[in-house]
């Protein structure tokens, strides 16, 4: 049952990414090309999503619990550390090279471009490497 529910949510999110153009790397790279063929339209996509989610969160957090699931899963981390900044910096470089971020890349999988087939396994490899690094760091450093 939760599989179907998540499938519906993924479909909704994915259609949003496709309709808005976030899933087209050429459009994303033009958005990032401030001093060239700048296409500011994706700023409205991200800004629009933030506004909708801002009010959505207000509605959701007024409830005592989720409609589906046992409890809300809210990120608890608040530390602004080197790991956050370095990770975000590398993410931005990768995003600027290929024009894909994780969600849009997955919507592109079925469209079958060779570049997508190169990107997605590499992305999962990168995620796995980050997890390994975090685990080895947790082992060698004292907790806390």
């Amino acid at each position, binding site marked *: 049952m939760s599989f179907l529910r998540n*499938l519906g949510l993924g479909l909704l999110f994915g259609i949003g990414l496709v309709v808005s153009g976030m899933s087209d790397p050429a459009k994303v790279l033009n958005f990032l090309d401030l001093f060239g063929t700048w296409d500011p339209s994706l700023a409205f996509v991200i800004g629009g999503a933030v506004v909708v989610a801002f009010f959505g969160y207000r509605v959701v957090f007024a409830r005592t619990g989720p409609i589906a699931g046992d409890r809300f899963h809210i990120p608890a981390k608040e530390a602004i550390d080197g790991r956050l900044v370095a990770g975000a910096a590398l993410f931005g470089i990768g*995003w600027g090279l290929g024009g894909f971020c994780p969600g849009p890349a997955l919507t*592109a999988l079925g469209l079958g471009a060779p570049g997508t087939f190169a990107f997605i396994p*590499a992305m999962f490899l990168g995620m796995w490497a980050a997890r390994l690094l975090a685990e080895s760091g947790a082992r060698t450093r004292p907790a806390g």
Partner: protein
Amino acid sequence: MARRRVLSRLGFVVGLVAAPFAMQALTGEPVAQSVSGNIPLMVASGLLVGFGAARGGGCTSGHGVCGLSRLSTRSLVATITFMATAFVTVFLVRHVIGG
């Protein structure tokens, strides 16, 4: 329990992958998309995006949309950082190296 959670999360991924086909069925038009055919570039891009998103605890959706809309300072720092490095990367690739 763990397996059921993985399976239910997989539903979200299946939905994402199915999205362009749902769009094509609704509009009757193919989804326009232009992906670079430079395979080494796309592998490097994928490695950086995957590693960076996992290391930094979020991506465009996670920090950029969900985090900012929760008014998370951590997400604001991440979003400013990845937007800045992405702008610089595209500038270097298109106007310094490519230009």
